[in-house]
């Protein structure tokens, strides 16, 4: 008899964590993967963040290059700024700053690893904990008896029974659909993410990129494009919500590849395209409909990728663990009702993921309006940013005159920048600081610093040559 305590549909990071923790808690658990092995169907989400090492230290310290040869950690990230003419107007490279509070976050920003290696690695923890993994198995429907969930069925009509099912089956979740939790995402809740993988020599990557591990290409001619470096290659991809494309997504991705600067980078890295990938990525202000009678959704299936930049693996792991714990409680209480499973929301809201979503709407809004609105926003943002960053490195005029030219140029972007700041920056700042904002913005405190500055300004205005 294929009877279990818990069924998990999906063996990505969310499903494997759910299966591992459920097995650890003594539940007879099975988890399913439609590919021949976990990770075979997955692309992207491959920059692993340090919170995984903080929250799952025993597991993550076992992630070594022996286990996952593609792994590459790096301490630096680069932001390229590409203008309307397709020129890299400048870039900023940054490392973890003084305020970063723990290791390994002080040492590196992301650990990058192909999903074809990471997902099998993480699934092994579940198998070692006693969960049964069934690969090459497409689960096609939920089993119900008297209106209650009692298992799942695969494409060959094999039935698996359990009183509770965790849907860890990704953006196009069968579990979400068949349980009535969600037929489709709204168009502004889901992005499509095409991505190229390039092969490159590991020594060349190290020589040329140093300890840079990822880059974001901010641009006026394509939605922000990310670049993630692995041991012997890198990904270049971009995303946007399904209602925001006016051309094929690949047209925009190819604009990145065809930048003169990018072509030079490919030449010096001697990089060759190796794979084309594409996937859907839920990107929401806030997860909703995460559970119902006998069902819990985790990871992408539950809409948990980060509202700012859609990091998905870590939220999948956290929600997978939370779902397993709640499932175990439900089994102990023999209560699989929607009401009982609402504990799942309480649990994840108390995690780092819950805290992330507290400002979910504001984070989502600003990100969507900035790098993902290239024509509307980046056309003024890139030149404004570069005026600030790059304007001073110029010997065309006396420096004081340059500063006035720069100030005048920046002023010309204000009709665009100020409404943006009012609409997106202020709400985010207000949300993040809440009560502290009053103290920080206290006019008396701000003014107390000002008179000394004002004393420095000459009372009489001297005539300037550029005024004449």
């Amino acid at each position, binding site marked *: 008899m294929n009877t279990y305590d818990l069924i998990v549909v999906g063996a990505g990071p969310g499903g494997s964590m759910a299966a591992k923790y459920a097995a650890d808690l003594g539940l007879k658990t099975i988890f399913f993967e439609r590919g021949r092995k976990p990770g*075979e169907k997955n692309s992207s989400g491959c920059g692993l963040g340090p919170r995984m090492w903080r929250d799952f230290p025993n597991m993550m310290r076992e992630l070594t290059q022996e286990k996952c040869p593609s792994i590459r950690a790096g301490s630096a990230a680069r932001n390229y700024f590409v203008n309307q003419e397709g020129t890299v107007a400048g870039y900023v490279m940054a490392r973890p700053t003084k305020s970063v509070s723990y290791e390994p976050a002080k040492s590196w920003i992301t650990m990058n690893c192909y999903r074809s290696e990471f997902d099998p690695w993480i699934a092994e923890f579940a198998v070692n904990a006693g969960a049964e993994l069934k690969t090459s198995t497409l689960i096609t429907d939920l089993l119900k008896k008297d209106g209650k969930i009692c298992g799942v069925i695969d494409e060959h009509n094999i039935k698996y029974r359990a009183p509770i099912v965790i849907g860890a089956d990704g953006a196009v979740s069968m579990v979400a659909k068949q349980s009535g939790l969600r037929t489709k995402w709204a168009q502004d809740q889901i992005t499509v993410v095409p991505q190229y993988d390039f092969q490159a020599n590991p020594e060349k990557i190290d020589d040329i990129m140093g300890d840079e591990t990822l880059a974001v290409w901010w641009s006026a001619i394509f939605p922000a494009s990310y670049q993630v470096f692995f041991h012997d290659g890198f990904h270049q991809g971009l995303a946007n919500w399904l209602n925001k494309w006016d051309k094929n997504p690949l047209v925009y991705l190819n604009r990145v590849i065809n930048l003169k600067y990018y072509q030079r980078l490919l030449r010096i890295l001697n990089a060759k395209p190796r794979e084309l990938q594409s996937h859907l990525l839920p990107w929401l202000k806030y997860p909703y409909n995460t559970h119902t009678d006998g069902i819990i959704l985790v990871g992408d299936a539950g809409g948990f990728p980060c509202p700012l930049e859609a990091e998905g693996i870590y939220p999948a792991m956290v929600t997978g663990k939370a779902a397993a714990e709640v499932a175990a409680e439900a089994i102990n209480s023999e209560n699989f009702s929607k009401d009982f499973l609402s504990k799942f929301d309480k649990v994840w809201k108390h995690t780092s993921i819950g805290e992330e979503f507290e400002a979910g709407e504001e984070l989502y809004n600003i990100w969507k309006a900035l790098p993902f609105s290239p024509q509307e926003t980046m056309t003024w943002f890139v030149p404004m940013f570069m005026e600030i960053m790059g304007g001073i490195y110029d010997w065309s005029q006396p420096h004081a005159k340059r500063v006035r030219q720069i100030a005048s140029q920046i002023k010309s972007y204000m009709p665009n920048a100020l409404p943006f700041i009012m609409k997106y920056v202020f709400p985010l700042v207000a949300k993040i600081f809440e009560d502290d904002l009053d103290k920080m913005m206290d006019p008396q405190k701000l003014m107390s610093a000002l008179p000394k500055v004002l004393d420095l300004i000459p009372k009489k205005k001297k005539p300037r040559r550029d005024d004449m």
Partner: protein
Amino acid sequence: MKNNGLTKHTPGTGDFIFIDQNRCNRCGQCILVCVVNLWRKIEYIISISEEYKEKCLECAACYQVCEADAIKFHYPSGGTGIIYEKG
């Protein structure tokens, strides 16, 4: 960049994408978002390439973008379809 040779598939998927011509409103969004250009409009009829089983990346963007609910999608048979070795 040509995309030929940049994807690998295991055969035996069976059919997994279907379009209901009675529901299709010819909006063309499926054509717009398909990264491997599998959809086409010929004389106002939208259809998917006969080779889709060997070329589809299984992203399901066509299904998700279809507001007329004309496109039906389920994942291909277990162990078949797209293989990402460097995903």
